[in-house]
């Protein structure tokens, strides 16, 4: 557990330093006043927390300040973290296997969010947990998406079902399910093509993949996860809304949180849609895809040690 927090802290170290820097060490011993509050507000906005969450955090700190004029920065950070924890309550996704094999995970998202990479890392993680996994390369649209997954599969020793670019992705998903069943796999992970949520023809294609899978197993795909680029702003909320409306999302993977971006938008997504976050991407290595932890995330954002 400690190791995991360390990873989070490392991943978010730039976040913490960025917020700490903007607030001039507010979270240390300094006392709260009007100007440090506005610095904190700015830091939260620039972490993509959005208007609603930023206001909520600032309001609560202001109220505490009214009651106690000697409020210290550290206490303000604790209040901030507790607001985040409250907003995020219930957001930790725990992957449960379905009763019948294979448990199917459909991985979807906009272009460039990191779906293919996440699929490979996820398969690797499940394999480490002694599960058997098959990946379906159903992104038959983007040039060389299949080759990308093949390279990952070779590197991490993963099993992959693929066809050629331009092939019917739904048919591939169907065949992959049959293969996963025949090979008695615990999991089938389906990598789909990137699509902007505003293109409804591509959204229909997702629905087709689902329909076709249900010919094999009426409950498949049991998990429909959206991959969200953590450096995006409020538009990621729009993306999640639209994908959720047409595909019924069951979970999120938030990628690219190892930059200086704070991934604050994921709080907005959870606020609005209550979709749990299963994994976060904290680096480029396979083991850098980590389970999401509210405690670690909230503490890391406000620079609190456990």
């Amino acid at each position, binding site marked *: 557990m400690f190791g995991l927090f360390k990873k989070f802290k490392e991943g978010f170290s730039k976040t913490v330093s960025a917020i700490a820097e903007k607030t001039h060490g507010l979270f240390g011993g300094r006392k709260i006043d009007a100007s440090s509050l506005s610095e904190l507000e700015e830091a939260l906005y620039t972490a*993509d927390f959005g208007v609603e969450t930023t206001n909520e955090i600032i309001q609560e700190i202001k109220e505490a300040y009214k009651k106690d004029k000697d409020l210290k920065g550290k206490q303000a950070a604790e209040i901030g973290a507790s607001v985040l924890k409250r907003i995020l309550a219930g957001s930790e996704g725990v992957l449960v296997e379905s009763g019948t094999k294979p448990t199917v995970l459909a991985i979807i998202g*906009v272009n460039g969010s990191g779906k293919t990479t996440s699929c490979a890392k996820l398969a690797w993680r499940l394999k480490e947990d002694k599960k058997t996994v098959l990946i379906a390369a159903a992104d038959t649209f983007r040039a060389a998406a299949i080759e990308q997954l093949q390279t990952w599969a070779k590197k991490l020793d993963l099993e992959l079902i693929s066809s050629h670019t331009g092939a019917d992705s739904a048919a591939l998903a169907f065949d992959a399910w049959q293969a996963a069943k025949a090979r008695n796999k615990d999991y089938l992970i389906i990598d789909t093509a990137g699509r902007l949520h505003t293109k409804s023809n591509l959204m229909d294609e997702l629905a087709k993949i689902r329909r076709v899978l249900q010919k094999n197993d009426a409950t498949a795909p049991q998990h429909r996860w959206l991959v969200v680029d953590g450096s*995006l*702003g409020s538009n990621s909320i729009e993306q999640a809304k639209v994908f959720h409306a047409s595909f019924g999302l069951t979970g999120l993977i938030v990628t690219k949180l190892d930059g200086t971006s704070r991934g604050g938008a994921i709080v907005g997504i959870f606020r609005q849609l209550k979709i749990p976050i299963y994994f976060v991407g904290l680096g480029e290595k396979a083991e850098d895809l980590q389970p999401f932890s509210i405690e670690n995330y909230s503490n890391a954002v406000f620079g609190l040690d456990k």
Partner: protein
Amino acid sequence: MFESLSDKLGQALRNLRGVGTLSPENMAEALQEVRTALLSADVHFKVAREFIERIQTQCAGQEVLKGVAPGQQVVKIINDELVKLLGEGSTELSAARPLKIMLVGLHGSGKTTSTAKLGKLLKKRGYRPSVVACDVYRPAAIDQLEILAKQEELGFFADRTSTDVPRLGKKALSDALASGSDAILFDTAGRLQIDTDLIEEVKKLRSEINPDEILLVVDGALGQEAVNVAKAFHDSLQITGLILTKLDGDARGGAALSIKSIAGVGIKFVGTGEKIADFDIFYPDRLASRILGMGDVVSLVERAQESIDEKEAAKMAEKLRKADFDLEDFLSQMQQMKKLGSMQSLIGMMPGMNGVKLGDGAEKQMAQAEAIIKSMTFQERRNPSVINGNRRQRIASGSGTKIVDVNQLLKQFQQMQKMMKMMKGGGAMKMMRQMNAMKGKGGFPGMGM
């Protein structure tokens, strides 16, 4: 993309109706809403604040002009300020020949796709472009670029055995020049701006190839982070411009405003769709107009000029004139339309249509009409009157539609033919009446009727 921002501006300024002079007091509420709107559109916090301050100074004390709603007056001030912020005039590429361009950016921002799109655009401008694969890290990135290059008939250079990017870049440059290329585009690996090793690598590549343009590729949906990204890349590489991608999505693009004002480099191109043709020059004035819901007709007209074959258009006009227009012609008309790009991206450019969601209904209707016509024999397309019940059944099952769909298409086509005959006969009044009668029945897809 900026639709929701313009919506919110409109709402915030509606409250200003009936005011005599603009003052900080009566502006306060509206400006607070403008600030919230800017922040929700992912404009950087500092940029939003400075922008509001500038607007406030400019507005204060101004008398509300007669005949103009105060809201409109403020919109004009905001518009002018936006144009200024986004950079006046168009931002052109360097005129150097051979022209060497390096594309850099974060992971997944769209560098490889943009490389191909820019290559195609330069080819259209008379260059002989080549692309060089310098992304040796992402699995299959080289394959992706090769496939796109082949598709667009661009020169392609790579070295699959090397990970020494500066060296392979230098070698590819001399090979490309030797092959007669006069525009060489370098697609580099995605990297975090704080990844010092990879930034060092791309700096070395820069000194080996000495590019005329270093373009940063930025996802249009990027959040507050956009500013850090642009600034850091600029500090270490002295970028010369930006490519803003994925602008065919919705509500956002505040990143464009932030980058422009903080990092101080211009936006040169925008990616507006998945097709390689969905790539435009960036015009700040057009974007500002679009932000304020005034549409972007100029871009639309330009794209039409580029995409539509003039000879084909003349032939079509002649056919229309003679009322000799059959389903075969209709099919080619639709295919011309498709070349313009996706319907949604076209709609977004039309005045007053900002924010109108097509929902792909029209696109679907067009695809269906195309499928139906393609399931007809050539004889049937030339002379639809031969299509009897049996043929209808065959066409419907061939195109995966129902007989009613086929019937509807044929009926609409007949009406159109009738109208053309009337036009030929000069019966304009008759035609007007006919058109009124047709209203509400659903026009012919893709013909704007």
